[in-house]
């Protein structure tokens, strides 16, 4: 029997993988994908807990999250596009004019 703990472990692992990606990837698209992993980790949690608690709030919210993630990606891709146009690169460490 797969218990709630397994789901939590899975989601935490996914979250950490995403976080690792965020911290190590310099490509903006990879950064974005890693964030998506983290969001999906949350979605796993939400769905699993919804099942566990026996209400569907979590599932519905997971749908919202997916939709918002999509919107976020849309904005993100737009920004990455202008990033490329201005810097001729999608490396997130290239724009570092403003600091200190």
């Amino acid at each position: 029997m797969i218990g709630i703990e397994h789901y939590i472990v899975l989601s935490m692992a996914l979250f950490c993988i995403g976080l690792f990606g965020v911290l190590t990837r310099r490509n903006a698209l990879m950064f974005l994908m890693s964030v998506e992993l983290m969001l999906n980790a949350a979605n796993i949690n939400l769905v699993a807990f919804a099942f566990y608690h026996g209400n569907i709030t979590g599932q519905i919210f997971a749908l919202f999250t997916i939709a918002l993630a999509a919107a976020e990606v849309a904005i993100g891709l737009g920004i990455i596009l202008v990033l490329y146009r201005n810097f001729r690169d999608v490396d997130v460490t290239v724009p570092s004019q403003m600091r200190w």
Partner: protein
Amino acid sequence: MFPIELSEWAALAPVYILVLSAMVLFVFDSINPRTTNRAFLAGTTTAGSLAALAVAVWFLLAGVGTPQADGGFGAISLFDGQLVVDQLALFFIVVVTVVTSLVSIASYDYMKGHTYQAEYYTLTLLAATGMATMAASNSLVTIFIALELASLPSYALVSILKDNRGSIEGGLKYFLIGALSSAIFVYGISLVYGATGFMQLDAIAENLDADYGPLLGLGILMLIGGFAFKTASVPFHFWAPEAYEGAPAPIAAFLSSASKAAGFVIAFRVFTTAFPLEPTASVIGVDWTVAFIILAIVTMTIGNFAAATQTNVKRMLAYSSVGHAGYALIGLAGLGAGANDVVMGAALMHLFVYGFMNTGAFLFVGLAEHWGVGRTFEDYNGLSAKAPIACVAMTVFMFSLAGIPPFGGFFSKYFLFTASIDAGLLFVAAALVINSALSLYYYSRLVKALWIEEPVLERESLSQPVGLYAAIVFAAVMTVVVLPGFGPVADAAVDAAAAVVA
């Protein structure tokens, strides 16, 4: 005071008005995509936000949210408790709409010659809608949706100067940190949901279960991360200096005032409604105020210290905005020591005054950018000779931000100070005083540059853009007159705080 009996859904009228104005701009933009009719666009935005402001003020005066025992209408709960309109919500809707209208007036001049006029104003209104909805959100679901509704347009707004590398860089950093923060935030929501089984704030409070203490604790901490991002508090503040520096000045004003205030309102609501101090502490084993005490001290210290040696005025203001987030965090850090309404009321007052003085300061920077005088302190030298009125206003903003009487900033900071003393947070009070003293150094540096230093280069006479001037002067006047009018504001703030902390 209601001339006609409105049904309950009307309680969200300020938000509807904002949405409607955004939709009007959408329609106008789709009919006439290349429009440069700035008067109509800025006018609609201003009218919409002013109308929302008027309605919100009217509601406040009419007693929406005032407990029924005091002859009011009580907090109005909508959509099965997903949204709630009470004094706290209305208070912050007022702050947000005031800032939005100031920003849209100023943008009329600032965005002159810009290609994407309609998009700019539409996004501003949508972000304002998100912030207003944040103020009224009463469930983690609506909070997240509203938060994203406020954030996503903000990312776009920061990077709207598509050929300006600074704008893109700021926008990118804002977006990346924002995406990371919202991922953490959602994960926090999922953990809280897992620990309690509910998303609605009151339901969460009723279902705090000791079995899931660490789970809930981690979830709460992750929620704090989300709020810290929105309010630009350490350690989620890294986006702020760059985003404010790179963004168009009115947008920087908008984000640092309205967006920050909206971040605070959800923090206030979540932590007072969903996680009442003592029950939560018995579950997670520690007072969450500890987190806010640490955050408050660190945030105000890092913000002010980093601001002290800046050479770029806008960046200095950005860091000072981080510092002010630290001051407002006292509103949460000081809870639980008895006079909760006073502590939080003080934070509300500070955010209210801050909405004027900080917006005004950023708009002055916008004015300087409009003139093209440059960005550093040296570039501002001797501006008072050419633009005395604006410089008087800027001086008012600076001294008010530093907390010098008789300006509004002094009173709100003074209340925060006494509130933190009352709450027994002597370290926080000491940090507040030390940081305020330090902040006077860099604020007065700017004043000195404006009034005392000789300009580096001879300047031609400077133009006087009507919109920017009007917004700046209005903000300055409000910063000053909030003093005699502080009584009602303070009462409203304390009432609003009392309603949620009770």
